């Protein structure tokens, strides 16, 4: 029904090229360019979570994103919540969002945010988050329908809305993202089982393909859970070094440095990379689109 495989870089045939390639690999560029097909007609996006610290690591991750953008021109960044920590004054929006991502914003990259427990509720109206005043909303890119949810206040009305919106969606891919992970093996928070019992039946009923969350300040890719692919990517600013407790559910994880993700949906395949602050590809693979349950 689905498969996940690590994409192995091909070996260059000649020595001079190998030297150049090695140098590029050290800069973290090669693996990115190899793993992602970078097709012109694909949906390309980046994933950041728990980013809004305004500290140096956030800026360094942002620089790495900008560097990736020059080779992999994503036009969308999905934000998994905790987009702002601490003060949330207009100045903070400059220091913790506009400045670090200035190059991406200048390149017309659109940020689509979901809120976390450290975000102020009124941030739904911050123009650059493109939430249009809504705590939860949906939008389409190519053959992908995104659902940005508010896991901090998962009220019955939101669940009803999600059920109806998923039912109405006709796109090939259904991607949900929100702050609190339904599955996580980080030691600090771990899985939000109360939310899992509410959301997972809806995801299964409507054939959600992939779910991105943050909250735990690590990167983790879960083995498919009941056929759904889950990612935790909550280290684009914050980091809990050594906090992962990988187990049977864990397909890959990284907790040694800040990280973000690049994703490309090309037809029935979703390629992904997790990239560290230093530019190393710490995980990469491809997901083949799952079959939908017959409704």
């Amino acid at each position, binding site marked *: 029904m689905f498969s996940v495989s690590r994409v192995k870089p091909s070996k260059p045939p000649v020595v001079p090229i190998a030297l150049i390639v090695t140098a590029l690999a050290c800069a973290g560029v090669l693996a990115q360019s190899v793993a992602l097909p970078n097709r012109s007609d694909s949906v390309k996006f980046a994933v950041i979570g728990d980013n809004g610290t305004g500290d140096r690591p956030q800026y360094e991750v942002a620089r790495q994103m900008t560097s990736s953008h020059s080779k992999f021109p994503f036009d969308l960044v999905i934000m998994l919540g905790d987009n702002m920590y601490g003060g949330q004054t207009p100045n903070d929006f400059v220091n913790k969002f506009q400045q670090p991502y200035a190059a991406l914003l200048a390149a017309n990259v659109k940020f689509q945010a979901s809120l976390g427990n450290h975000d102020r509720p009124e941030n739904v109206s911050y123009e650059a988050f493109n939430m249009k005043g809504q705590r939860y909303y949906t939008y389409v890119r190519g053959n992908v329908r995104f659902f940005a949810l508010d896991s901090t206040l*998962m009220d019955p009305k939101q669940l009803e809305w999600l059920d109806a919106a998923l039912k109405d969606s006709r796109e090939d891919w259904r991607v949900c993202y929100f702050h609190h992970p339904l599955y996580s093996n980080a030691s600090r928070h771990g899985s939000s089982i109360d939310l899992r019992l509410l959301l997972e039946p809806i995801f299964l009923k409507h054939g959600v393909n992939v779910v991105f969350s943050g909250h735990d300040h690590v990167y983790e890719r879960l083995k498919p859970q009941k056929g759904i692919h889950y990612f935790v990517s909550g280290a684009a600013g914050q980091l809990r070094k050594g906090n992962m407790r990988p187990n049977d559910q864990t397909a890959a994880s990284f907790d040694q440095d800040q990280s973000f993700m690049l994703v490309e949906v090309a037809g029935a395949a979703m390629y992904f990379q997790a990239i560290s602050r230093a530019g190393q590809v710490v995980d990469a693979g491809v997901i083949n689109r799952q079959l939908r349950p017959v409704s």
Partner: protein
Amino acid sequence: MRAAVPQLWHFAVEHLLLLPIGAAIALVWVNVDPEGYYRMAYALTFPVNNIGLAVFFALMTKEVVEATAPDGVLHPWRRALLPAIVAVAATAVSALIFVGAVNALDEPVLAIAWPVAFATDLAVSYLVARLIFGRQHPVIPFVLLLAIASDALGFLAIALFHPTEEHHLMQGAAIMAAAIAIALALRRARVKSYWPYVLVSGALSWYALWRSGLHPALALVPVMPFLPHAPRDPGFFVDASPDAVDALSRFEISWRHPGQIALFFFGLVNAGVPFRALEAGTWGLPIGVLVGRPLGVLVGSSLAVAAGLHLPHRLGWRELVVVGFIVAIGFSIALFFSSALLPPGQLRSEIHMGALLTLAAAPLAFLSARVLRCGRFSR
């Protein structure tokens, strides 16, 4: 052994232990087997919180209704004026400090739960006040009135400022009017059994509240005042005599134990807090009420006195500080407010843990009484 079980049950009921026992089981269960716990909790939430708890609030209302009779703390009504003014200040200061605290603790979204800072656990506060001051001290009615007024303000705040619920007040008001009209008709027809009041008016009232988007656990609150009651108040939390014939006392005799069972399940269903879900914002509620209540009680009392009202005899600033700690105990009502306001998830877990932590106000009340030489420590 056979005799020990009823004795144990009686002890647990008399000492209000069923709710804390339910809460303790929930805390252990959710941290050992979270999936099993949440499956149970989600299955039972509706019947426990919306139906079972109606019995608890009916019993609380019964105490208030009786308190309006001669000898009651609410007789005459103007006695409630001073505590009502103090309650406004005490809850407002608590809520302001709560909002400031959650902002300072970097979880500003928790501020939507500010009405939880209004909650006072009537029964536990009364118990603590009695233990510190004794049954006859004028502090006792003051504490009770303060607690009733604070909770009433909390219910009002939840109804008016619910963060996610949409209210349909007009429809609900029409149905509620019918429920009250029926209760009034039953009273005028001198119906002595409580059943028609509960089954007809109570059911209609429940539907009215549910339809309005308000909490249906309060369904019997507007109905209970219409039940015929004893001519004089036997006292707060004094059990009705087994041979009492008035409808209100008969209701209490029949539903006292089911009400306690409902409280056990309320604790079980609502107090399950996974420790890993907690962040700094958890401290917002305890800080809000442990600092805000004593401060607010002092501010409110000063304003009331400045407005020309008189504090009860033997109630000075030292007693007021102790009272502030006593009415900071939110526990069951704070859990209820939190469940009514917040959907499942991290925020609810944090506020629920905060509600449990407000129990720390009880030892603080004893400590402050000892330091300030109040009540039993005055000798």
